[in-house]
């Protein structure tokens, strides 16, 4: 239950903003938004008594009066954000192909850029892919687009917690990717969400909040890969409360990744909800490196026979970071398979929480579900919480799960040092090797390599040494 003041504060903000939100004139959307703010009034932010949020305290978010992002800031920070977009692993791929300019346009991967939750058309990398629509939600809502009306909110369980309810009330922009029937998209679609620290010259540097909604529709028989990148100004302290809906039709294959490198002082709440129809396949990847406080939920409903999903996750945490990964796989149809591997690397006083819930419905026979969570603790103050939650109501089910929490293997450390590799470097290389398994599953060597380097830098106490390594 939200305290009266919190609920009222958000209600007042909603009433003040709703006229400005994209799609304001759409009745179906208005009723969803009304429902969202009403649900938030009932639910408030999740508290300690909520079992699903037992290890994650969001009182810092509940207690903050967030400001609305100022659009002028995005314009003022344009050069910095453009550099961040150019630094994405996708940009390198393009540079390599500049020797053949005619090829470049054909091979470039599109990047949709959002700053503080708003579409930034002038920062995007445009590259059309046949059979794939890549647009901003605000634009499509403005046009009253039918495909968006059909997809919007289809997966989201608004009533599950206050963050989802708030997103339902406020969401007005984000990426929409629609892969048309039978299309195989050979290039990856990238989405970049950038959060700014504000700009003192423009408005007070208050923490801001954004509620983006990304929607991916993979029509029947299509194949595509979508990567969401989250980053921002180092000094940003705001809240990103994002929902991604993945609607995967019969026999479609979707690879989806969330790479979260949010600023160290920011909060990141992300909910990925996927619904899989008959014979379809989802490969979900979550890589969490940034944010002071983060919660990433991946909820998958295997809704048609033969649907399959793999959920891979990596969280690398240091300092006082707290990251909560919450996954739910609902085997709602027979002959559905899932495999899940989440790995954590936790240093300093950081805390990693993993919850893996697997539900097998009574009529869902011939199910295979495999779940593993492996944690590597690098410091005495580091903590890993692992909670497998299996709810199995059918009998023809092959289900396994395992959780481990351990430290770096001393034998491996000595082996590396005996070969001349210094202690710090050996620790770093072994940790990257531990994480490597999840990065390889990305199926994108360029992205994996960029993440290995980012992870290496994060573990490196001496940046100069790392630069030498990067250069070699």
């Amino acid at each position, binding site marked *: 239950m939200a305290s009266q003041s919190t609920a009222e504060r958000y209600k007042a903000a909603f009433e003040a903003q709703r006229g400005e939100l994209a799609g304001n004139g759409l009745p179906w959307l208005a009723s969803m938004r009304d429902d969202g703010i009403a649900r938030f009034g009932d639910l408030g932010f999740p508290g300690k008594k909520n079992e699903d949020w037992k290890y994650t305290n969001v009182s810092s978010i509940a207690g903050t009066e967030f400001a609305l992002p100022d659009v002028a800031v995005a314009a003022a920070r344009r050069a910095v954000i453009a550099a961040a977009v150019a630094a994405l692993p996708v940009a390198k791929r393009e540079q390599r192909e500049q020797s053949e300019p005619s090829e470049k346009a054909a091979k470039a991967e599109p990047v949709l850029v959002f700053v503080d939750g708003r579409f930034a058309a002038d920062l995007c990398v445009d590259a059309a892919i046949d059979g794939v629509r890549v647009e901003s939600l605000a634009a499509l809502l403005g046009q009253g687009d039918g495909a968006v009306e059909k997809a919007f909110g289809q997966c989201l369980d608004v009533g599950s917690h206050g963050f989802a309810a708030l997103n339902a009330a406020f969401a007005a922009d984000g990426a929409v990717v629609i892969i048309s029937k039978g299309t195989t998209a050979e290039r990856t679609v990238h989405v970049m969400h950038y959060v700014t620290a504000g700009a003192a010259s423009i408005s007070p540097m208050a923490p801001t909040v954004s509620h983006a909604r990304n929607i991916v529709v993979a029509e029947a028989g299509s194949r595509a890969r979508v990567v969401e990148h989250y980053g921002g100004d180092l000094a940003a302290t705001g809240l990103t409360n994002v929902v991604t809906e993945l609607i995967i039709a019969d026999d479609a294959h979707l690879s989806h990744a969330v790479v979260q490198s949010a600023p160290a002082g920011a909060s990141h709440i992300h909910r990925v909800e996927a619904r899989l129809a008959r014979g379809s396949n989802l490969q979900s990847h979550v890589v969490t490196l940034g944010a002071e406080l983060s919660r990433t939920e991946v909820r998958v409903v295997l809704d048609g026979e033969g649907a399959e999903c793999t959920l891979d996750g990596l969280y690398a945490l240091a300092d006082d970071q707290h990251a909560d990964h919450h996954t739910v796989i609902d085997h709602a149809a027979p002959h559905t398979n899932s495999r899940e591997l989440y790995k954590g690397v936790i240093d300093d006083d950081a805390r990693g929480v993993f919850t893996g819930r697997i539900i097998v419905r009574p009529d869902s026979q011939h199910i295979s579900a495999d779940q593993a969570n492996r944690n590597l603790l690098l410091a005495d103050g580091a903590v890993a919480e692992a909670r497998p939650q299996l709810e199995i109501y059918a009998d023809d089910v092959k289900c396994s799960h395992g959780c481990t929490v351990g430290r770096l293997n001393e034998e*491996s450390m000595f082996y590396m040092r*005996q*070969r*001349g590799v*210094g*202690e710090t470097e050996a620790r770093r*290389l072994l940790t*990257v*090797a*531990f994480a490597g398994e999840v990065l390889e599953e990305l199926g994108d060597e360029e992205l994996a390599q960029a993440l290995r380097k980012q992870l290496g830098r994060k573990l490196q106490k001496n940046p100069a040494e790392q630069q030498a390594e990067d250069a070699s």
Partner: protein
Amino acid sequence: MLKIRNLHAQVDGKDILKGITLDVKAGEVHAVMGPNGSGKSTLACVLTGREGYVVTKGSVEFEGQDLLAMAPEERAREGVFLSFQYPVEIPGMSTAYFLKAAVNAVRKHHGLDALDAMDFLKLAKEKAKLVHMDESFLNRSVNEGFSGGEKKRNEIFQMTMLEPKLAILDETDSGLDVDALRTVSEGVNAMRSPERAMIVITHYQRLLDHIKADMTHVLSDGRIVKSGGPELALEVEAKGYGWIAGDSQAGHSELAKVAKAVEGPAS
């Protein structure tokens, strides 16, 4: 090159080495034999600086430096290499990546430029041939899923890449069939040079059929009880270790002789 003086060491508070004195000069190959529990592997661990091995007395000098004061990686960079009895598996790290880090750490220590990926691979492929290893293993995780023979060949391969001054081979023959033993021995023999010394630790004489030692030492209960030429290894093989244990007085006098010899003008 290496001067061990009256070395005493403990593991878990238990005395394992009880006064080892040994001199190894550049170009020499020394065999260290002994029954299980005599302290052979402990000697290797102490020389390479493994955690948990506490030196309580004595000294070790390597190329004029106090070896025991150095961290394991410093010893390695100075040229001390251990071929592990049980090479470690590292899932997720390719052999090439692992070894490139090692080679470049050693090069950096000696003021040399790091090898780039191309030069490294070229060198690695060349050296892999010496130990008859298919170069595909460079892309496999370090020792993961390797057979016993492959692991030992990988150790010798690493030795050829790192070109140490002092190589310590700890039970390199264990778990090898006849062919693998020959391959590994060829790799080791190819590494023999006037600038390089080797300590070959083994329980059995069979490795010494392939790698000819200049000196043989028999270890028992943490002491060198007998030292001699290559013929000593054959004697051990023929008679077992029992006769030496029963002849410990002779062993001690032998030790005294050796100690005297190494303190002579030759050193």
